[in-house]
């Protein structure tokens, strides 16, 4: 990985749905190993931005670079590096926990699949229930398995879309620890939230989206929930008036 190029570089990313402009020439860059908190109200364009980063959506125009290379030119390589969490669990309800991970493991061409699955299931404390169908799992267990699925292929870029919404306290703790671990391992994390009560201590970069524009973009250390609230108030409400 060239040190000079940022991990993620966006230039003039524009996305419109008919007459609705979801993203209006968004430009930003994220360095390797940063934990980015992307704030914004509902409809500000957070999910759209993450979907574009995950290649689930094509931008109307603009350039998306991943480690100094055009991300869309070699899509499979980009996809192999990305882990994505949304409010859907992305699991097959009639396959067992193990089968789900094994299935996705094959799609990602993982060679040491069995070991990885065992480790991932241990991390989310589901190894004992690996041979049970997902349909019988509680919502919390499904979310934990979904976390295991996301981390299975060791993604270097994690995209988390409102990851805390609907999580039970156990899964919330787990996610916090996983993100902290990612930060320790030098992976990049981008998470969106409209919840300002973010307890995460490792956030190193704050972005605020408002009506498809980046209105705040600063790096720092040890952001606190109070600071998040201040930043949000200062930039979102101001733009509203």
């Amino acid at each position: 990985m060239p040190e000079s190029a940022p991990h993620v570089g966006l230039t003039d990313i524009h996305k419109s749905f008919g007459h609705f402009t979801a993203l209006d020439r968004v430009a930003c860059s994220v360095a390797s190993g940063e934990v980015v908190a992307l704030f914004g109200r509902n409809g500000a364009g957070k999910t759209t931005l993450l979907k574009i980063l995950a290649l689930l959506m094509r931008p109307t125009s603009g350039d998306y670079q991943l480690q100094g290379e055009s991300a869309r030119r070699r899509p499979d390589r980009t996809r192999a590096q990305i882990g994505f969490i949304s409010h859907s669990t992305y699991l097959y309800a009639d396959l067992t926990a193990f089968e789900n991970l094994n299935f996705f493991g094959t799609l990602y061409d993982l060679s040491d699949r069995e070991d990885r699955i065992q480790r991932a299931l241990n991390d989310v404390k589901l190894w004992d229930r690996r041979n049970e169908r997902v349909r019988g799992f509680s919502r919390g267990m499904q979310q934990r398995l979904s976390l295991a699925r996301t981390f299975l292929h060791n993604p270097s870029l994690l995209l988390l879309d409102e990851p805390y919404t609907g999580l039970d306290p156990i899964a919330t703790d787990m996610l916090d620890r996983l993100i902290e671990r990612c930060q320790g391992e030098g992976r990049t994390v981008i998470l969106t939230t409209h919840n300002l009560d973010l307890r995460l201590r490792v956030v190193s970069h704050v972005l605020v989206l408002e009506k498809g524009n980046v209105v705040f973009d600063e790096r720092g250390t040890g952001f606190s929930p109070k600071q998040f609230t201040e930043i949000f108030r200062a930039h979102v409400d101001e733009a509203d008036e």
Partner: protein
Amino acid sequence: MFKKILRILWKDIVTEFRTRELFSAMFVFALLVVVVFNFAFESAPRESILQAAPGLLWVAFTFSGVLGLNRSIAIERENMSIQALMLAPVDRGGIYLGKMLGNFVFMMVSELLIVPLFAVLYNFSFSARFGQFLLILVLGTLGFSAVGTIFSAIAVNTKMRDVLLPILFLPVVVPVLIGAVETSVRTLAGEPLRGMMDWVKILIVFDVIFITTSFLVFEFVLEE
């Protein structure tokens, strides 16, 4: 990529083995069509029933196929796992082929169970030239699943969802239906394959054109 396609197919087959949702719906529906048609034919002479029988079978396959196609795409939407497939480093065309093969397998299985039942209910024999009939069954069903898989993925994005699928699907598969019925009628009358190569060719052309084109354009159906 071949391994991944088979893996998607395997995933659908395992799911189906456990739930039997798709298969039971398709099988029971096809059987119902066959039974209900009996009332429509009641006063018709036996010869004309025998003439219309292959057509009736294919109509049953078509409509039960639509049910199966809708269910097959609904499974991917349950937890939005279709997005997980899109996130994975798999070619979009590969996702299409995996789902298409799954639909093909399920349709074939339910058809192969309906055929003997039909033979019993209508006192009909398929034993003459069964291999030839099987070839037609494969070519016709491949055409159905080629078109049906991509159209079900289109229909699921619309306001009407599953209601729209038959409206999109039926007019486009008309050539398959005509070809399959023509060749079936003649096969069951004992005609050899040599005499109907034109029809076999049209079925093959249809399958090849629709599989390759869908393979190429499937990403536009999936991506937003």
